[in-house]
């Protein structure tokens, strides 16, 4: 379990995040939605340990391995696809050269990038870059995966396809996922639970459980799906 307790963050004068509590069960898929600048990315970075909270704390199981998926994919442009997929194994200790190559290969296959090993990031589409970014994280078999608006830069069709792929990967790899997005239907499609945050100073104003078992294209036109999306959108709107 990852638990966030009483987390507050000030950046100089800006009060970004106000007293947030959140418990995330192992294997859960939780999405944080909120208007731009509500501190949701800040919360995700605090959970990642990339920034320290002004007050409060984040507890994660000891020795748990996390990975972060950035909005712009954050690939190294001077490395080809294969070498990018191997990067995190070079940074973390304990992977032999052989292991790095074979894990990278199978992760690339999993996200459908086989045959592109020798390509460079600038030759890839936005969707392919994000797939590579996912593969790069998955090679570590992370206990938790933090996703910061990973699909905001891809076109609508690619976004839906990638949502389905992320869901499949999550089911298969069984990591805990925390996603930050401003796209409500994406949040509902992917998560067990949606957390709604208020504008700055951001705090949690609402939580919605999403019960669906089967997540595929048909879910998007399901009236219950639409109802939950509308409920969350309504919450966001009333707070503006």
């Amino acid at each position, binding site marked *: 379990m990852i638990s966030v307790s009483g987390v507050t963050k000030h950046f100089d004068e800006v009060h970004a995040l106000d007293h947030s509590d959140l418990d995330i069960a192992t294997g859960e898929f939780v999405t944080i939605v909120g208007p731009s600048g509500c501190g949701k990315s800040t919360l995700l970075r605090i959970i990642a340990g990339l920034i320290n909270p002004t007050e409060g704390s984040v507890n994660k199981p000891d020795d748990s391995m996390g990975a*972060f998926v*950035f*909005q712009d994919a*954050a690939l*190294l442009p*001077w490395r080809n696809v294969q070498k990018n997929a191997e990067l995190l194994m070079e940074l973390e200790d304990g992977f032999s050269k052989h292991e790095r190559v074979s894990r990278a290969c199978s992760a690339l296959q999993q996200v459908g990038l086989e045959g592109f090993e020798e390509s*460079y*990031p*600038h030759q890839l589409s936005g969707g392919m870059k994000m797939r590579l970014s996912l593969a790069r994280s998955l090679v570590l078999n992370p206990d938790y995966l933090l996703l910061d608006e990973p699909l905001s830069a891809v076109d609508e069709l690619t976004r839906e396809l990638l949502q389905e792929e992320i869901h499949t990967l999550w089911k298969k790899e069984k990591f805990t996922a925390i996603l930050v997005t401003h796209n409500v239907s994406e949040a509902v499609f992917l998560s067990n639970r949606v957390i709604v945050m208020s504008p700055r100073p951001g705090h949690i104003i609402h939580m919605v459980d999403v019960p669906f078992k089967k997540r595929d294209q048909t879910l998007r036109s399901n009236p219950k799906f639409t109802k939950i999306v509308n409920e969350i959108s309504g919450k966001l709107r009333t707070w503006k």
Partner: protein
Amino acid sequence: MEIKNIAPPLLVLMLFLAIWSFAAHLYDMVFLLPGPMTVALAFVSDFEIILEGVTITLREALTGYILAIIIGITSAAIMSQSKILERSFYPYAILLQTVPVVAVAPLIVLWFGFDEKSVIIISLIISLFPIINNTLLGLKSTSNNLVELFQMHNSSRLVNFFKLRLPAAIPNIIAGLRISAGLSIIGAIVGEFIIGSGSEGGGLGVQVIYAQGNLETPLVMALILTATFMGFAFFMTVSTIGHQLLKHWHESAQNE
């Protein structure tokens, strides 16, 4: 290269040569303004002297340039690791650029002797700043997400530097190396100007002083043209190497 790329500059060159020829013919004083043919003849008849000059100047400039690369990249790397070091030393790196090298050169010759050593040091001083400045800029402008990615996986300072900051800075480093390539040759010739008004033999700068003393203007111009093309060739060589290094991944080397 295609004809449409070569034709315009070639046309300009021919026009320039024609005007030059005409002006030289009008003046009719070979020690003031020799025509292009006279200069070409001087180039041929004094080819051995020129070749010797090229060899010496190139050796000096290359040594100064390589030293500038080593010192420049190392000092930028050190400055990039600490704000305090950067604040302490960067202003002096700027002074390196603003000091009038031509005026300081005699001092350097006085300190280090009337030989190649001084020439190399002058060439080094003149080519150092662009390398420091561009390398430092590159090392400091790594994308924030990439820094966070490395931070997330507890990479050490050393790993961070060699796997992230240095490769990310390569386009900037190459930009600095390109500027300094031409400068290193200018520096060598400035140095030679100061050390050598004396004997025959020596680098291009020494030869220019000597030929000028003998009123051998066609040779002076042949030497100047040689020095100019040498700088150009050096710049092109560095550019080509840089392009080869970047062509796989950097925007600046695409669509060419």
